């Protein structure tokens, strides 16, 4: 076996700021688990948590615990976390205001034969809170909610076609996942059509080409693709979506799963002035407890009632109790105003530190759900270097997926993050001037 000579971080190699040995010892337990996992789990760690989505060698693969804004890996390393369990943490890991009542219910009984009365309370609360919505159906994963939403739209309209934005993520079911195997293309994916987000002309053309066959359009409140700057909707775009849906008698589904309660407690559609017929929420809904919800308008109640909707775990009580507590705690901790304030500190700080170091770093997306890219490097080499350098300094910022601010992030956390960013940008500057890609 031949080693590749002297090219640890090789010019054509991957990303690295430190030697592999240093990293390996920092993540020895993570690596050992990964090697064991590779023998018994396809891919070791599959899907979006696969190490290749991060920067191997700089990020932990296994986490053992978390508290507030901090996560701790299997080796005991501590990070200020800006991924928040992919958005599910909104009032902080292990928040006693949520965990207290949830654990108490766990002791009394979680998964029962019939629903716990809290199901009614939660449905009433969400219907009262989220603008324009009249009913609620609880499921487990976001994918359950988006799949149910598109199915209800199809059943109600008796039409097949689903329209979606290119690069949008609506879950891991065959109709919407990136598992583009021909066998699915001929079945579940056959009637899903794509257009570039915010492109009214392309959308009009798509509606025209599929006239009479469109059941629904599914959109996230703003466009949050991986690997790319985030895009807010133009007001004209949302107006056009609603006009086209009306003319086609197609439903407008807003997939608010990633953004819910970070932009507006009444739903992200309120934040952007949109009027969807169906809304899906999940993630932050119960601060990490497994529950998602499909909310709908009166016009779809009858079709929803005629659906057989079930899952063994879909009515478990603990996540519903947790959701009620999360809604209370969110408001108590300062709500969306605080998220935006801290998001503003982070955005302004990062952009100005980037400028000082000579980079065109740009933070896109809403303040509470930011993502940083470098205008000079759409290939993301700089992102990967920057986030690796931040991870080396104890800050978990995903290089390819948007970040999340939670109500557990303090001003001090943001200040420490910016301190780390100053030296990470400096490392990046030295790397950029000395190293070829």
């Amino acid at each position, binding site marked *: 076996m031949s080693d590749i000579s002297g090219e640890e971080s090789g010019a*054509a190699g991957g990303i690295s700021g430190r030697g592999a040995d240093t990293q*390996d010892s920092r993540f020895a337990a993570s690596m050992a688990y990964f090697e064991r996992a590779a023998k018994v789990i396809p891919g070791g760690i599959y899907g979006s948590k696969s190490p290749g989505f991060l920067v191997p060698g700089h990020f932990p693969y296994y986490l053992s615990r978390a508290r507030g804004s901090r996560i701790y890996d299997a080796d005991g390393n501590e990070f200020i976390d800006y991924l928040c369990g992919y958005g599910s943490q909104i009032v902080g890991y292990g928040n006693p205001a949520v965990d207290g009542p949830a654990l108490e219910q766990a002791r009394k009984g979680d998964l029962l034969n019939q629903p716990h009365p809290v199901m009614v309370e939660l449905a009433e609360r969400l219907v009262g809170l989220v603008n324009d919505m009249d009913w609620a159906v609880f499921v487990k994963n976001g994918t359950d909610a988006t799949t149910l939403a598109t199915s209800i739209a199809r059943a109600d309209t008796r039409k097949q076609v689903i329209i979606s934005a290119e690069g949008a993520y609506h879950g891991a079911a065959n109709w919407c996942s990136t598992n*583009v195997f*021909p066998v699915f293309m001929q079945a579940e994916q056959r009637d899903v059509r794509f257009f570039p987000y915010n492109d009214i002309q392309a959308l009009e053309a798509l509606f025209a080409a599929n006239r009479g066959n469109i059941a629904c359009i599914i959109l996230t409140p703003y466009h949050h693709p991986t690997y790319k700057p985030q895009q807010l909707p133009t007001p004209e775009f949302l107006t056009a979506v609603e006009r086209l849906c009306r003319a086609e008698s197609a439903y407008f589904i807003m997939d608010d799963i990633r953004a819910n309660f970070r932009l507006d407690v009444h739903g992200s559609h309120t934040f952007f002035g949109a009027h969807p017929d169906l809304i899906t929420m999940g993630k932050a809904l119960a601060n990490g407890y497994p529950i998602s919800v499909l909310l709908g308008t009166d016009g779809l109640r009858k079709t929803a009632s005629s659906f057989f909707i079930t899952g063994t775990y879909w009515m478990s009580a603990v996540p519903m109790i947790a959701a009620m507590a999360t809604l209370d705690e969110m408001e108590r901790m300062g709500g969306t105003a605080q998220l935006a304030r801290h998001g503003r500190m982070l955005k302004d700080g990062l952009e100005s530190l980037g400028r000082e170091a000579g980079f065109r770093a740009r933070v896109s997306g809403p303040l509470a759900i930011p993502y940083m890219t470098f205008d000079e490097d759409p290939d993301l080499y700089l992102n990967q270097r920057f986030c690796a350098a931040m991870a080396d300094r104890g800050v978990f910022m995903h290089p390819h997926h948007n970040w999340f601010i939670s109500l557990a992030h303090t001003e001090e956390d943001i200040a420490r993050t910016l301190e780390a960013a100053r030296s990470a940008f400096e490392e990046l500057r030295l790397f950029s001037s000395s190293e*070829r890609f």
Partner: protein
Amino acid sequence: MKLSIRGAGPSLHLRVPQSSSRRPSLLLFFPNIESAVRVLSGAKGTAVPIPLDAGVLKTLAFFRRASNRATELLRAADTPAAIRARLLLAATLYGLEAIAGESYLERRMQIIPDGVVGVRAGEIAYRAAKEGRTIHVDRAVPAEADGVVSAVNSPRPDAVLSFAHYQSAIDVLSGKRQAVVALGSGEVRIGGLLPLVQGLFAVLDRLSWYMGVEV
């Protein structure tokens, strides 16, 4: 020389080292795909050599030796890792080039962004350019003292894929080690435009299904 298989699309041109002529001296014609597969994998099969120009015997002899040697080297237990990796990498990348337009991969190729991937294992370096439904592979020829590195990096590829050791390349390319696992363990590194290089992994899966390389 020119290789042509009846009923199997465009023919392939192979340049024999030290040949000066630009025109092919030999057309090797396979009457069907099965015989091409047999001959090219070192077994007995029908191939009709058609002389086109001077130097035909030399070309034929070279081809016989080279094609036998390649399969021999892949099979032999004592083949040095560097050579085995070189053969597998070439087979893989040119294989990608060959199957990119397949209808099975149409949607996959659509969602993989266009761009160039720099691929490296030790001294071996290639650039694979994905554009629309095609993949074009070039060997990165050492350009200066530090050789391969500068060649593979100039101009900067949109994504890079490098194997930590020749053995890592062999394990991954022969299907012994899953690419995603090798990534996690650091045997394979990727950087830059990840959807480009990861998309090609998916195309690779399809390729290994065809080739079933055993080493």
